[in-house]
């Protein structure tokens, strides 16, 4: 009886949060202009530190 009530309560809570029942599809960052710019900045920073370590005297 108690188990059934708990299950019912959990189901009711889940129904209020659709993302808990169905996982959101993974978004491609290239679909967003901002995502692309952030990736570009991150790549610039990574390559900068890499090149700096290579050219250091």
């Amino acid at each position, binding site marked *: 009886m108690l188990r059934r009530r708990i299950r019912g309560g959990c189901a009711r809570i889940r129904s209020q949060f659709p993302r808990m029942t169905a996982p959101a599809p993974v978004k491609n960052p*290239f679909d967003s*202009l901002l995502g692309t*710019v952030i990736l570009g900045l991150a*790549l610039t920073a990574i390559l*900068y530190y890499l*090149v*700096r370590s*290579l*050219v250091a*005297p």
Partner: protein
Amino acid sequence: MDVLQYGIGRWLHVMAGILWLGLLYYFNFVQADAMKAAQADGTAAGITKHVAPRALFYFRWAAVVTLLAGLMMLGPKIDDAYLFKDKAYIPIGVGAWLGTIMFFNVWAIIWPNQKKILGLVACTDDEKARARRVAFLASRVNMMLSMPMLFFMTGSGGLFRTPLFH
């Protein structure tokens, strides 16, 4: 010879590079969203018929001129840059590699797919939809690569110069 290699070569490289990247940014910042809005109100044909083919013509040929002028400027130091043989040429070498990848992206991925989108090559609707997605993603990859590429192109003469030459 120096005037041709470094004077005219640099001028051509920068001018064609501005045209190439300017059009790349136009495609990413303006046309991608404009196309969605134009498709919604049925006016996309104006862009695909009159704007996109002209923009793509200058886009892909500016890429050729930029690459050739860049290679001309590197001259005998081309292997130092591309193979990272000399420390002083590593920053420009990274910029050159990124620019070269972008160049192949334009000619090997974006342009063949754009030909399908614009109807210059016969294809089915499914192929056209796939070509649209591939060209879009390749354009976005070039947009991402352009940021470190420009950083290293400009930084090689400034940011990285101090520890190497003084």
